């Protein structure tokens, strides 16, 4: 029988650094909750807002698959592999930090916030060669259907990471239902609602709620209102 864990939006950790406001689904930086460390290989789900003209100065990372999904505004990315790029709403960015990478992310707009999801997944291999990639997604490809935006396979749709993870975005009209099938045994899916109300196996989720579901081969998702959501399938043991 499917097991679930529900994280209501208001129960997430919160950090207000003035220029940065961040809601943490899982323990991060100064937010520590031993009951909320990870969901399988999914370790970080931060819902960040960065003030105009501000951002994350150059800082290092290692051994983590880091995915950013901008929801509003544009972020300028620079890294130690000489990548300079702007990611905007509709894009997805991925970094394999591996043996070590430096990067900065800035909101170039002077007066408007940038909002984005920062997601960290444990890699299935330590000390890989660092890499960076980004992709522009087509919004129409997720209207009333699931759009794969990440997988473990370089030749598959979306970006890829060093982990048996598959991410899908959906933008469903009210009343639309779909079934999600796990790619492999031992996997779980963390559903994060970006906007609207979604019913997952008879659990109602509202905006920014999260639900982890595992010990099942498949589950149903129904949009109770017009809704946008992200599904993150990851190994539960890794």
């Amino acid at each position: 029988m499917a097991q679930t864990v529900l994280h209501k939006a208001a129960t997430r950790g919160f950090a207000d650094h003035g220029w940065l406001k961040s809601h943490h689904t899982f323990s991060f930086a100064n937010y520590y909750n031993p009951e909320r460390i990870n969901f399988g290989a999914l370790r970080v789900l931060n819902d960040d807002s960065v003030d105009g003209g501000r951002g994350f100065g150059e800082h290092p990372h290692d051994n983590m698959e880091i995915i950013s999904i901008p929801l509003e505004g544009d972020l300028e990315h620079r890294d130690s592999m000489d990548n300079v790029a702007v990611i905007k709403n509709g894009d997805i960015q991925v970094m394999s930090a591996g043996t070590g990478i430096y990067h900065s992310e800035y909101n170039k707009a002077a007066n408007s916030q940038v909002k984005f999801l920062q997601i960290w997944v444990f890699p299935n291999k330590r000390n890989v060669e660092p890499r960076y990639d980004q992709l522009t997604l087509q919004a129409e490809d997720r209207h009333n259907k699931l759009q794969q935006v990440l997988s473990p396979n370089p030749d598959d749709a979306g970006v890829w990471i060093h982990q048996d993870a598959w991410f899908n975005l959906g933008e469903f009209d009210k009343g639309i239902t779909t079934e999600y099938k796990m790619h492999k045994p031992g996997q779980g899916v963390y559903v994060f609602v970006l906007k609207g109300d979604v019913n997952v196996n008879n659990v109602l989720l509202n905006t920014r709620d999260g639900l982890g579901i595992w010990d099942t081969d498949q589950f149903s998702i129904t949009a109770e209102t017009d809704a946008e959501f992200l599904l993150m399938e990851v190994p539960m043991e890794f």
Partner: protein
Amino acid sequence: MMKKCEILVVCRHPDILATVVRLINNNPEWHATGCQSDDEAVKAFMLTKHNVVLIGAGVEAESEAKLREEFIALNPKVKVVQHFGGGSGLLSAEIYGALQK
């Protein structure tokens, strides 16, 4: 004065090592020693009774296995954990988690 929690960080990447050591030392209850090589790490471990060892970027699987074996032989109570992320994001949770084991 309360004894600080002693944390040994082993990491091949000098800048990440410096960052992690600095972040740990920002916590007044923790004290970090950073080492890039296995030899340095073993020497440091023999000089100080470390509570936690963090294995960071670039430490090969073979080195990690040897270090774990050596550290646990010297101090069976030490917690040896892998560090992920290379910055402040996961550091506190990794250390708190190790101390609660």
